[in-house]
Every structure is written in structure tokens, then in C-alpha cells.
């Protein structure tokens, strides 16, 4: 199929950017979205032009690198990552607008690549459990109830892609934080640091410049892992408990 691609090009984080339009033919519907961009880049390189810079790593939907805003939807029209989006979701003759995540906390490095280190700093501010390193502990020594374990596991599927921030009109990372708070808060191992965790993560989130959550709900619709809004309510509940207990 033939496509018209409108792609954000920006030479560096300090350079001004703009939309460039490309015509691309010979796209198969079996290609993934990233393979389609690879095809475009091959043409650009052949013509001696600068290829479009975009991020990817695993290309199997588990690493969260492939952040693209496609026709105004984070990761495009399906509930999945960009690498797992296929061109059969589009039609011959379509115009596709491709932009980077828009958030001052995710500055553009080049073209479609953004820097998501702010997420790492939020995790470093409490999104972990402290454990002695060494040989792995015996798996059954700390039993977790099955329903709690499943709930924690569902929250743990967050891949840190940033789609929630990109889709949110406030640019809030509450879904991302809530996923980690719920994941660790459900498990016995997460209890000792439970309330200092939520206070630390929220403080870093606000310090980075992420927006405040007004419970709009675009994040969960954009999340490739289907993390529910419940995790934000849990985040708020833990934060309230922490504040009451003077953390």
C-alpha cells in the first residue's frame, strides 16, 4: 500500500523541529509499524537524506522503548506497543502523523526519540524493595496470597513506556507510579518501605515537572498493558495513609 507520512523532524534537543511529509510505497500489511519506518529510512539513506531517528529495542512488546504518537494516539490505534502494531491496522492511501511524546519531562533528543530518564529517577526515589544481595532466596519462604499475587503481577506488567504521560492532557505520570505502588504494596516484601515509597515517588514526580492527575482516564486507554485506573486510587490511598502517619 501507499502512505503519506507526516513525521516530526528535529535535529537535536535544542534545534527547532517541524513536520515533514514523505510518500512511501510498497508497504505490506504484514509489516510492523517499525518495519514500515525501516523501509522509509532505507529509501532516505539511498537518496542521501538523514534517516528518521526513532527508538526501539526488543520489538516484541516488552521493553517499552518504541514510543510514538501515531495519529494522535499513543502507540497508534490498537492497544499494544508500536513494535507490535501492524500495517494491517491502516489502509492504502492513509495519511499517518507521527510525533514524539510531548512532555517537558521527556525532552526530544532527536526526531522521534525522547529521553525518559525522569521515569528512572522516580523509580530510584522509592519504586524498589531493599534486599540483601547474594543467592536468590527460597521462593516459598515468604508466602503471598494468590489473589494478591495475581493483582501485583498485573500491575507489574508496566513496561515504563510513557504512553500514559503522552496521552494525559496534564502530562501526569500517575498511572506509571500507581502501577509500581500497587505492585509492591500488594506483596509482603513491599510492606517495610510502603509509605516512604509513595512519598518519595510522588515528590520526585512533582519535582520532575509531571502534571497533576485530574482523573481524566486517557492514560489507561493508551496503556499497552491495560493498567487500570484502580492503581491511581491505590496511590492516592497510600499517599493519604502516609500523610496521616507523618511520613
Amino acid at each position, binding site marked *: 500500500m501507499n502512505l503519506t507520512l507526516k513525521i516530526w523532524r528535529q535535529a537535536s534537543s535544542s534545534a527547532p523541529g517541524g513536520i515533514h511529509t514523505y510518500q512511501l510505497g510498497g508497504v505490506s500489511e504484514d509489516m510492523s509499524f517499525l518495519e514500515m519506518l525501516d523501509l522509509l529510512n532505507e529509501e532516505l539513506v539511498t537518496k542521501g537524506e538523514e534517516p528518521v531517528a526513532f527508538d526501539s529495542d526488543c520489538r516484541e512488546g516488552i521493553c517499552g522503548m518504541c514510543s510514538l504518537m501515531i*495519529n*494522535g494516539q499513543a502507540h497508534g490505534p490498537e492497544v499494544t506497543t508500536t513494535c507490535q502494531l501492524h500495517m494491517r491496522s491502516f489502509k492504502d492511501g492513509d495519511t499517518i502523523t507521527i*510525533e514524539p511524546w*510531548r512532555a517537558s519531562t521527556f525532552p526530544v533528543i532527536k526526531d522521534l526519540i525522547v529521553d525518559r530518564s525522569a521515569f528512572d529517577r522516580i523509580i530510584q526515589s522509592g519504586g524498589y524493595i531493599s534486599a540483601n544481595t547474594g543467592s536468590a532466596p527460597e521462593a516459598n519462604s515468604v508466602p503471598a496470597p494468590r489473589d494478591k499475587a495475581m493483582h501485583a503481577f498485573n500491575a507489574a506488567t508496566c513496561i515504563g513506556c510513557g504512553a500514559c504521560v503522552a496521552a494525559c492532557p496534564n502530562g501526569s505520570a500517575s498511572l506509571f507510579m500507581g502501577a509500581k505502588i500497587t505492585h509492591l504494596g500488594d506483596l509482603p516484601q513491599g510492606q517495610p518501605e510502603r509509605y516512604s515509597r509513595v512519598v518519595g515517588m510522588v515528590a520526585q514526580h512533582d519535582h520532575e*515537572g*509531571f502534571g497533576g492527575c485530574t482523573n481524566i*482516564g486517557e492514560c489507561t486507554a493508551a496503556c499497552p498493558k491495560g493498567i487500570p485506573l*484502580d492503581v491511581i486510587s491505590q496511590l492516592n490511598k497510600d499517599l493519604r495513609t502516609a500523610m496521616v502517619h507523618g511520613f
Partner: protein
Amino acid sequence: MAASGIVFVLFVLVHMYGNLKAFSGEVAFNEYAHHLRIFGEPMLPENGLLWIIRIVLLVSLVAHVGSAVALMRRARAQRPVKYQVKRNNASSLSSRTMRWGGLTLFVFLIWHLLNFTIVKINPAGDQSADITENPYRLMVSSFDLWWMTLIYLVAMLALGFHLHHGTYSALQTLGWVNSASARAKAKIAGWVIAIVIAGGFSLVPLAVLFGVID
């Protein structure tokens, strides 16, 4: 935001109930208004309860608008470059109109207080004390004008929208929506509060306009 919002919700609920006294006629309505003034006497001075409520509402208003402005500033600073194309996939219209709707309510609030509390302007013209110092008469002569009824109905639409998302949002902000079934209930609560309050307030102006109350 949630705490001040809940103060407003409780206030508008009681206020709406008070307005419905208009259906019991002039004497009952004015008696209710008078009773509010002397409530708690002699424990409280005249207008004591009213002043307590006014101060709580004013503090809530400052907190509410202050938080709204802070949220808006953070959102603006976070997205300096807008998307060329952006689709809303899941959010309700009410959730996306909280800021404009809140501003509409604020403008309405100023007019509403001038109309009925601070200056007691009779928009129909006659400014004699017979009307302006008689809550029931002032209300009837205001809503006899079609455009006054219209202003109030538009404001109640804005209030309904604000409460539809606000109620749900406050429950989530307070951390009480931790499962799918709780979410379904919180959404229903938003609808119920919005319809009961905005609908209840709308009954009286409509009744005056259609001559049920005169």
C-alpha cells in the same frame, strides 16, 4: 481540591433542598430564609450560622480555585509543544471541561450573589424594598424574565457537568475506587449527584417561568 469540592457538594445539596421550599408558597419560603438567619439563637448571634457557612465556603473557594490554577499551570508547563493531532479515546466531555466549566460557575456565582445576596438587584426593574427585601418576591420577579431563567439553566448545565466528573474524581482522589466494581459505582454516583442537584435547582426557575409558582 477534593476536600473543597466536597464542601461545595454538601452546600449545593442543602441549598437546592432549601430552594424547593418555593413550592410550599411565599410564607414557607420566607420563613425558611428567616430561620436560616436566626438559626442557633441565642447560642449564636443573628446571622451567626450564615457567617460560619460563608467563611467555610470562602476558604473552600480560595483553596479550590487555587488548586485549579496550580493544576492548570503544571499542565501547561509540562506540554509546551502541542500535538499536531491528538485524539481523546476514553475521557468524558465533563472531565475535559472542568476548567472552562469551573470558570463559568465562577462568573455565574458573582452574578448570583449580586442578584440575591449582596446587592439584591431585581433585574425586572422595581428596586423597592417590598421586592428586594422579600426573598420570595425577588426570586419570582427574577425568574419571570425568560433570559434570567436561561442564565440559571445554563449555569445548572455547567454545574451538572462539573459534578458529574467532580464527584467521581473526588472519590478517586480520596483513594476509594480501587476495583472495577467500585469504579462503576463511583461513575453512577457522579450521574446521580449531577442530576439530583442540577435538576433540583432547575425546577424552581422553570416553575416560575411556566407560572406554577407566582
